[in-house]
């Protein structure tokens, strides 16, 4: 009897103590072991320094724009407290009512929002805002540049230390670096739309503008520079025969964007020494060091641009941390997000060599990375971001469709851009009217 009483007392004491600890759930999709470990380390550190909060990690695999699991969980009232969201969809999710206003909770916790914004790069903060409010804090980022194979440059009689700067140079180099046997490509110099050579990449390189944030109007179809960029892509496709190029990349098990076709991990034609130049993200750097043959010699250069275009243009993507609607402990979640976006990012940049959005994390990144990383870090302050609108995913897909229609010779650049702009503007206006 006595024992039972003691046991009950201890039990009730324990529940009292545990009752003070708020448990919050964090969903993320970083399945890569290095990234996963770094996150787990940061969370353990947070749990130690914040004894009243306990963060539970749940790994929910998924791709960037498909967040069906979160949408259904939120609609059903069983969502997590913190979610790892593709930053370029923050405005869309905020407009859809999937997010809690993070800014309000940060203010309640006593953070100075103005000062907090200063700690991050401008482009990342831009993407976290919708209707003059912060809905997310930025996580890591990425940006794009031209990679070229120095060995193939030498073989073709080009100076390996002089990457192409102008479009004319790019065209001449690409021609010299392309080889064909029996009508089929065995080596290709450059495919502008492969990997990260997206509509945005070339639109900005040509000095164009996609969106007028002041008037809330899409303007790419009216911008002669973007039309010119698309025409240039179309001419390239015609010159090299788009179908032969598509067949060439598909023999590496990928589509132009580098996405796997048919499940197996594609072989990167650039790493295999079959594609001499590519526009790709900073993440390729880690892959080169990991996967490329020992004698692989490469260089990194700014994306070539026409004389009237933008030198050193690049654009940044990346991730953010948000509180989904209906989270049970939004205040604790905000505390955790603030910790992760600052201290967590410093650790993450060192562990994974992902580009940070926190200015303070850059030195750590550079100390842990190969020397080439500096090229990407230096581009961060001037990086572009995709238009911050609630129909960002649709705009992306429509621009992709327009670009495909042009490179496959189905539509003229003006026509394709015009119909994409009208379609997306119509959807955008619906949201703005709300």
């Amino acid at each position, binding site marked *: 009897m006595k024992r039972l009483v003691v046991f009950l007392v201890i039990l009730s004491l324990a529940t009292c103590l545990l009752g003070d600890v708020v448990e919050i759930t964090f969903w993320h999709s970083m399945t890569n072991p290095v990234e996963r470990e770094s996150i787990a380390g940061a969370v353990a550190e947070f749990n130690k320094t914040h004894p009243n909060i306990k963060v539970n990690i749940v790994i929910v695999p998924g791709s960037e724009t498909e967040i069906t699991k979160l949408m259904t969980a939120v609609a059903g009232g069983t969502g997590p407290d913190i979610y790892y969201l593709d930053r370029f969809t923050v405005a*869309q999710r905020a407009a859809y009512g999937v997010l809690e206003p993070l800014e309000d909770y940060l203010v309640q916790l006593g953070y100075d929002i103005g000062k907090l914004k200063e700690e991050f790069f401008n482009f990342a903060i831009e993407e976290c805002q919708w209707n003059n409010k912060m809905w997310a804090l930025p996580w890591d980022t990425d940006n794009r540049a031209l990679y070229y194979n120095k060995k193939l440059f030498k073989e073709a009689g080009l100076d390996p230390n002089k990457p192409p700067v102008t479009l004319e140079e790019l065209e001449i180099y690409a021609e010299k670096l392309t080889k064909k046997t029996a009508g089929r490509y065995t080596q290709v110099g450059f495919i502008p739309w492969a990997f990260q050579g997206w509509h945005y990449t070339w639109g900005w390189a040509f000095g164009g503008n996609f969106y007028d944030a002041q008037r809330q109007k899409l303007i790419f179809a009216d911008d002669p520079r973007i039309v010119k960029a698309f025409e240039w892509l179309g001419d390239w496709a015609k010159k090299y025969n788009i179908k032969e190029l*598509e*067949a060439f990349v598909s023999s590496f098990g990928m589509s132009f964007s580098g996405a796997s076709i048919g499940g197996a991990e594609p072989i990167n034609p650039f790493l295999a020494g079959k594609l001499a130049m590519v526009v790709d993200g900073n993440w390729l750097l880690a892959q080169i060091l990991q996967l490329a043959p020992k004698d692989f010699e490469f260089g990194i250069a700014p994306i070539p641009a026409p004389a009237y275009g933008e030198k050193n243009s690049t654009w940044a993507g990346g991730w953010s941390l948000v509180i989904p*609607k209906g989270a049970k402990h939004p205040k604790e979640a905000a505390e955790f997000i603030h910790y992760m976006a600052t201290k967590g990012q410093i650790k993450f940049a060192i562990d994974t060599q992902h580009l940070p959005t926190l200015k303070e994390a850059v030195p750590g990144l550079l100390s842990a990375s190969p020397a080439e990383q500096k090229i990407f870090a230096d581009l961060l302050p001037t990086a572009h971001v995709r238009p911050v609108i609630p129909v960002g*995913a649709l705009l992306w*897909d429509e621009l992709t469709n327009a670009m495909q229609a042009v490179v496959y010779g189905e539509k003229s650049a003006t026509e394709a851009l015009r119909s994409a702009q009208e379609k997306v503007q119509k959807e955008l206006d619906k949201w703005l009217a709300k």
Partner: protein
Amino acid sequence: MKKRKRFWTAMFFVLPGIIGLLVFRIYPIFASFFFSFTEYHITLPPKWIGLTNFKELFHDPLFVKSLQNTFVYFIGLVPVGLIVGILLALLLVRDFKGVSFFRAVMYMPSVVPIYAFAVVALNFFNPYLGLVNGFLAKFGIPGPLWTADDKLVKLTIILIAQWGAGQQAMILMAAMKDIPKEFYESALIDGANKWQTFRKITLPLITPAILYYFITSSILALQFFELPQIMFGGGPNNASLSIAIYLYRHAFRYGNMGYASAMAWFIFLISLGICILYFKTSRKWVFYS
């Protein structure tokens, strides 16, 4: 009294099935019908907009393109599948040594998970490294760019889809087995050749199975999704985009559930029309003994 009690006991046991049917089938059907007249983004309440979604469909160039593609799939999959199915059934309906082995082999592709099937098919038809073009090259024929050519990609998919022809071959073969031997014997005595016996005896007597095939395969062809989505994600240049893939994009990428529901109901209406057509004409060509 006893009868009634037994009825309720029976109802109790089928209840889980009925609830499942109501919650996961019947309710979503009615819900999507309602949503097709609304603008609905899952997390926000639906807003009634009448027929706007349906009108919008015909002004959406990509929807029109997906409709055209689906039409090509329909034309390609249904009749071609029937011919392949009949040919396979004719081969395997005969009794020869080891026929059961070949029947199993014929059905095997239908057992393979669709994903694995798509991956293998991609390797077959890879323009540069694939087996098909490798084979053609042996005879000095430059192979077409199967998967990379936006004009050829649908044809490639239709060819690949024939690997699943074992399904319909099985049904047609069963129908052929049911035909009494006497018919063939008397045809033989009357001096009919092989083509005539097929045309006048086999074909008419398997028409009920063909009707069944037409209905099921037409519905599947209108909802065609897996192969073009896994293999090409609807590309290149949206040349393999089917209505179902476009519907999926709107529902789960853009969160436009209302518009996606309208597309779903549009497919349903076409399916319904086609099925009515089959039944109306069936009296003329289906032979009911």
